[in-house]
């Protein structure tokens, strides 16, 4: 940002700058200690601040059965709920633009209410991930993602491989 041309590296690089009278000995040490303490203070404050911010904005990705086994962990938290759109559970109110369906992992199921039109590829028995939180037992979603590449069908006895389901929804 110099207005005048700058000399390239000169021996001045290795020249020790003259220390001013004020800057000698004890003064310098105490200055260093002061800077050090200030630095540590700033780091502690920043650490607490970051911890706090992280803690409040973590969004867990879980399946319905994981939520059902420990609902208290997710109270007042934003979560991403993954699962399958239950058969014969879909209804869309095209006046209110409310999409209602049940999301299931074959063990537990929850009612989902999503504001907005169903995405193009949304259909029964497809994997979806909804983002939002529970309000009075209903999962209110503001973001609906269709995981379109796979179609899940429960095994004849009605069970679903949860690990596979989880993996395919991520």
């Amino acid at each position, binding site marked *: 940002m110099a*207005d005048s041309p700058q000399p390239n590296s000169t021996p001045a690089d290795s020249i020790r700058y003259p220390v001013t009278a004020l800057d000698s000995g004890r003064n310098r040490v105490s200055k260093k200690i002061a800077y050090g303490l200030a630095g540590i203070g700033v780091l502690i404050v920043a650490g607490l601040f970051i911890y706090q911010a*992280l803690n409040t904005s973590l969004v867990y990705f879980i399946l319905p059965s994981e939520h059902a086994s420990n609902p208290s962990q997710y109270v007042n938290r934003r979560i991403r709920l993954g699962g399958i759109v239950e058969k014969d559970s879909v209804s869309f109110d095209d006046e209110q633009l409310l999409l209602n369906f049940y999301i299931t992992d074959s063990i537990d199921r929850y009612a989902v209410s999503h504001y907005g039109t169903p995405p193009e590829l949304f259909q029964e028995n497809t994997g979806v991930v909804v983002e939002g939180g529970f309000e009075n037992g209903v999962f209110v979603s503001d973001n609906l993602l269709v995981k*379109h590449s796979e179609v899940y069908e429960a095994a004849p006895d009605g069970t679903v491989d949860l690990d596979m389901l989880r993996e395919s929804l991520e």
Partner: protein
Amino acid sequence: MPELSLSLPMLGTASLALAMAVAVYAVAAGIMGAIRHDARLQTSARYAAIAVFMAMTTAVLTMQTALLTDDFSVEYVAQTSRAASPLWVKVVTMWAALEGSILLWAWLASGYTAVVAFASPNNALRNWAIVVLNVVSVFFISVNAFVANPFTLVPNPPMDGPGPNPLLQNHWMMAVHPVLMYLGFVGLTVPFAFAMSALINKRPGSEWMSQTRAWTISGWGFLGIAKIAGGWWSYEVLGWGGYWAWDPVENVSFLPWLTATAFLHSVQVQERRRMLKAWNLLLIILTFALTILGTFIIRSGVVSSVHAFGDGPVGPYFLAFFLLVVLVSFGLLMLRWDQVRDHGELDAIVSREGSFLLGNVLFLAMTFAVLLGTLFPLFVEAVSGDKVTVGAPFFNQVSLPIWLAIFALMGIGPLLPWRKASHQSLVKNLAWMVGIGLVSALIAYVAGVRKVYPLWTVGFAGYNFASIVLLLDAAIRPRMRISGRGFWSVFGQYAVESRRRFGSIIVHFSVIIMALGVAGSGGYRVDEQVRIEIGESVTLDSNYRLEVVDRFMEQTPYRVAGGVLVNVHRGNRQIASLRPKINVFLGQEQQPVPTPDVLYTVWQDIYLSVSGTVSPDQDFVVLRVVQSPLVAWIWVGAVIMLVGTFYCLLPKRRYVPVPARQAVPAS
């Protein structure tokens, strides 16, 4: 031409192998030449770098030929191209998937290496810098040659391919954004290489940075513009009416930009005051290492994104290279610690260098916070097995205060003199800046801005604007007094003679414009879903009236689109006709892409995206309507930033006033 088509995979693979072999030779010859002080070996390494570039150019031309002639015997073409695609899509399909994007990167890396080998002056740093650049070329070419060969032969070629990802072929920005990004990454590799060379040669003065100044500024400029271009692509294509979502992909490419920005400022302290040697080395190492780390995170499939290209095999490869870069460069830095330690000390915090240092610390703090938020899900999963994402609130909470502090420093830093500021001038300048900042914030408040961050941003924008006026005033007024010439004449002379200074003022001005754009669109974006019957209209709260005139269909050989024609009215006047639609690319029918249409205006954008479907048996349409104030300021600011960056790079010239009545005073 069956013979020719059959030979394309072979030609491509052979070019890569040749490039690889010559690049390895170039590294070896460079190292041997340095150890033995053999000028002939060093020269040979330089010519080898040019040969590598030529071999890589052949590979790129082979790929282009394969894409343009629809040669589906090349695996990459079979997997990503489509015969019916328009010409430009075929050309840019080269970087629409993993293998091709590495090919582009490797090609640009070898090109930059060749330019450095050919054009940089013969001095103590050149040889090792070329070695480092060649090592980087070897890495990228080897990724292509060993784990992600774009020229793999398909024994039974299909008749046609699926075409590139619809999100990519849906917008011409795909032709621009990736290239700019790589030009940024590769450009910033050059100062890194010279820094390494400086360490190896035990010359950690400022020569490595003054020699690479143009590379640094241009690389930084490309990176910044590439990010904004990516944001604009996101705005125009993704249908949610935003440009930045703190997505991992955005974050990791933001990181090297942050460290590069810090670097751009702190090099001036070293050039001027011979301080911060170790700090500058640290920053340029971080910039390069973060580039590689980012590519690992994006391309390895650790995070899902349009950039991930599936779970590619290149992940471990990039991770290993990242670790190598970190170990070697920090090892070298430790080894040379005695030479890079600063002997000078800050005279005062309230000085140009003090403010730059503080700004640097803030940039680094932001880098750390964004990196932490991006990697945190990986830590959590490793520790507890829980799948989590870190939401945008974290990034906003952490980065907005840091950003405001940087924004505040941006105004005061350039006004402070080196070494130590006099109390009097500081107070006077600050009084003006804070005064104008307060007035701006007050005007915004009266106009209805009540949110905290937008209000602060407007305040600091006024404060920064005052700072620019004061800077120009301080530069021009004394020159006018001495020369006795008029304002414009002196202004012209100042602008031409102090290119970097004036360019930086332009760039800082663009930052003010973009900050206002981000504050307006981030703070006051209105996002709603509106149901409108065909032929009817709906009036929004903002008094715009949207009239859905009719549905329409479009068909081209490679795409089918269905959409609605919407007239936008304000009061009784029709101000625009928008055509939001849904595109379905043939070969990619499973992924229809909403294609928004935007009315760009100075104060407010109207952004329409079809939500759900458009079909003949449905007599209404649901539109996602996003109204973002000031969002256009970001794009305009980006153009100004580009101009300012380019201005810094113009060769220095002496200004000669047209009627040369008197001698031009030395500045």
